[in-house]
């Protein structure tokens, strides 16, 4: 276990009974979870290697209850970890012993749907998929679609600025959000934005999105809903080399075509997924693309005719454009089962760096070298259009030291992403997992500015304090640098 948690505040632990007594009148009796057995369910998220039992868990039923709990915590110096569905792969929702968890799972209602203006107001604990399902009967959907969409909440999506497979065309959470109700650390409730396309004043909507539960707790959101395309179909294309595959992606985009999804899988990923899903993936290629386009039948045919012609010089193998629903489902089934299928053959950690897409062949070669250097294996699946890599570093948790090796390999991969001009995390968030790597992407001034902005919202570090920013270096030198000679 290499990632450090702050030492729990002994004073808070000693006052646990008093704190629980103070919380009890603020929410319904069944909304305050205190027994150890019940708290266990909240001790980790999808980064299951790390666990901490929280002081207590509160599951409020209204914005007012969240505000009352936040006010109490603020007045009593109690730390707060916000939780949606606990699906964070970065450990964003892992608690700490001296903190309470505020879970938004009971805030799961649709408040208002406005098809004419294409917006929807929801409580923040609603799942991502439930938003789309609530408007599907009119042919609408909510665009960001993280692979955990069945379980993950819009609160968590806002906290992490979640993406998905279709953001090349539709953008990520921050591009699909119009308004938020946020409870600040002192219990103040603020409305940010509204149901219009831009918000007044500074862009607090953008700042809040991706702030990982460190600036406030989101209790309601207004999102854009979009009318779904008339149809969508994927095609599958294999390549004998990573270079040809990368060049083909560049050529498609260079020709002015923005597919709604452009997913890459390497040979190990293809083999693992094919063995699991029997999707009909080619096993004799080094790399494979799933390309999805949208529109009417006529438009889809036209787009694939263009794409196939563009791909021609790159010697695509096993080219298959889905002709039926069943073929389309099969093509996607393999990709969508990538994480589950990998989990059947090995333990793995899923990384999430982004690289400039032009660096693809270099990145894949060096990822392979890095992982082999630790004596481990890797399967690569990623969003090729935007360079968001998801290398699955495989290991055997029963072999002593392998998990630590996998973590080290993962860190090396993320450093590589930064070195190639990319970033540490494309859509999972920093959480606790990448916290100590922040200094590879940002220097002291870069981080200090973020810390100062954070300090506007939470000067006492009560909100999800173990995350995002390295534990060292949080104390800022407030001596004015004004007048200092420029370096």
């Amino acid at each position, binding site marked *: 276990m290499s990632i450090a948690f702050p030492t729990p505040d002994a004073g808070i632990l000693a006052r646990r009974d008093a704190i629980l007594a103070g919380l009890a009148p603020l929410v319904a009796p069944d909304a305050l979870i205190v027994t150890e057995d019940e708290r266990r369910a909240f001790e980790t998220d999808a980064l299951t290697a790390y666990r901490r039992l929280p002081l207590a868990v509160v599951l409020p039923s209204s914005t007012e209850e969240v505000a009352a709990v936040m006010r109490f915590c603020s007045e009593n110096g109690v730390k707060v970890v916000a939780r949606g569905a606990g699906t964070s792969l970065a450990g964003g929702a892992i608690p700490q012993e001296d903190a309470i968890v505020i879970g938004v799972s009971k805030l799961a209602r649709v408040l208002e749907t406005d098809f*004419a203006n294409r917006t929807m107001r929801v409580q923040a604990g609603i799942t991502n998929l439930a938003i789309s399902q609530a408007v599907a009967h009119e042919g609408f959907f909510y665009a960001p679609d993280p692979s955990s969409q069945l379980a993950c909440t819009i609160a968590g999506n806002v906290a992490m600025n979640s993406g998905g497979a279709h953001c090349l065309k539709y953008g990520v959470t921050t591009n699909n959000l119009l308004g938020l109700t946020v409870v600040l650390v002192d219990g103040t*409730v603020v409305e940010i934005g509204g149901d219009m396309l831009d918000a007044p004043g500074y862009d607090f*909507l953008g700042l809040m999105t991706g702030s990982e539960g460190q600036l406030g707790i989101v209790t309601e959101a207004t999102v854009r809903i979009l009318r779904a395309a008339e149809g969508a179909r994927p095609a599958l294309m294999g390549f004998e080399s990573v270079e040809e595959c990368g060049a083909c992606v560049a050529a498609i985009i260079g*020709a*002015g075509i923005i597919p709604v999804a452009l997913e890459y899988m390497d040979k190990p990923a293809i083999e693992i997924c094919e063995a699991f899903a029997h999707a009909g993936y080619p096993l004799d290629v080094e790399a494979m693309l799933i390309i999805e386009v949208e529109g009417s039948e006529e438009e889809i045919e036209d787009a694939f005719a263009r794409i196939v012609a563009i791909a021609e010089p790159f010697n695509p193998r096993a080219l298959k454009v889905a002709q039926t629903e069943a073929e389309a489902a099969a093509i996607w089934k393999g990709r969508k089962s990538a994480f589950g299928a990998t989990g059947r053959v090995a333990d793995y950690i899923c990384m999430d760096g982004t690289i400039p897409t032009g660096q693809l062949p270099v990145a894949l070669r060096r990822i392979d070298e890095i992982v082999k250097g630790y004596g481990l294996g890797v399967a690569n699946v990623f969003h090729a259009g935007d360079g*968001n890599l998801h290398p699955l570093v495989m290991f055997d948790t029963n072999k002593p030291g392998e998990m630590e090796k996998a973590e080290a390999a993962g860190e090396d991969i993320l450093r590589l992403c930064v070195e190639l001009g990319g970033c540490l995390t*494309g859509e999972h968030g920093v959480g606790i997992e990448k916290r100590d790597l922040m200094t590879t992407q940002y220097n002291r*001034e870069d981080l200090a500015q973020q810390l100062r*902005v954070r300090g506007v919202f939470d000067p006492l570090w009560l909100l999800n304090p173990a995350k995002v920013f390295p534990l060292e270096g949080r104390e800022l030198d407030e001596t004015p640098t004004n007048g200092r000679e420029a370096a």
Partner: protein
Amino acid sequence: MTIHSPASEDEVRALVCDAAGRAVPLAVAGGATKHGVGRPAQTQETLSTRGLSGVTLYEPAELVIGARAGTPLAEVEATLAEKGQRLAFEPADWRALLGTEGEPTIGAVAAANVSGPRRIMVGAARDALIGVRFVNGRGEAVKNGGRVMKNVTGLDLVKTLAGSWGTLAILTEVTFKVLPIPQRTATLVYSGLDDTRAVTALCAALGSPFEVTGAAHVPGDGGGAGTLIRIEGFEASVRYRLGELKSLLAEYGEPGLVEDADGEALWRGVRDVAPLVTPPERAVWKISTAPSRGPALAAAIGAQTEARWLYDWGGGLVWLAAAADEAATRIVREATRAHRGHATLVRAPADLRAAVDVFEPLPEAMMRLTKGLKASFDPKGIFEPGRMYAGV
């Protein structure tokens, strides 16, 4: 008025340190074409970004362009056009509207978050902006975001700076996501619709699967109104979607079809608010609301004071010209609030901008955060003090 024109980020830092040391506020300008937006400046010195010029990164296959903040917008657009790409959010040119001359810069596009009609489909300038370098009020050079479009590493200060009008920091370099220029662009023009029917038609078009990239309505007397719906893409796709939209909107009459240079001119007019440029003494407001509330909002203002307006963003953006006085200002603010919108006084004489709120007044808690945010970037308050809000 002293104008500093640093040629490098280090020079920007030195100038900022010097100004902060002397406690002298700075106006921040690129081409100064939007200088008259905001509360009148009380600054004696200007820091111009024009010396920070040039495209620093362009990777067409990665859909990304980066440039120093003072690079002329026209240069960025020409660079992109050579490879068949563009800034998809359609940055507006407010020179005619504001009666200014000079060269708009790419940094100001970010700082003012100016987006045109295509905002409804592809997002605003703030959505396309993926990376910034800037100098804060402490004279520190800071980067945030980067050159990749998927990036959630740390706090998103990129968005924070978009639309901050130079009040938080001086942008030194900006990186935008770009998109291809489509093969064909075509616009359906419906005539003679009243505002409510027009916006209903626009909502229907935007709620269709046919990917409308422009939805505007310009009211007119005696049947001169034009309701515009734009479709872009590959030829076969555009042809198909035009046909489908015409069927969908059959009840609104037989539309005209405008393409090529005429179409470009039409949308440039909407983007740059051409119908409200004259008479120049009128105040011009940019009002945001949900599209279906737009017509009632505009009508509520029109019922109380002489006003003209047009709708973009499917009806959700109301550009409105009214008298440049406090009485009309009060009417606009009250009607906007009543229709749950917000309004910015984009054009008005300095004395009016000094006397009334230019940006939408904020609730007390948001104002507290706003002041805190300002102080976190610019603790001595030297960048464009008071431009957006008094004391910010």
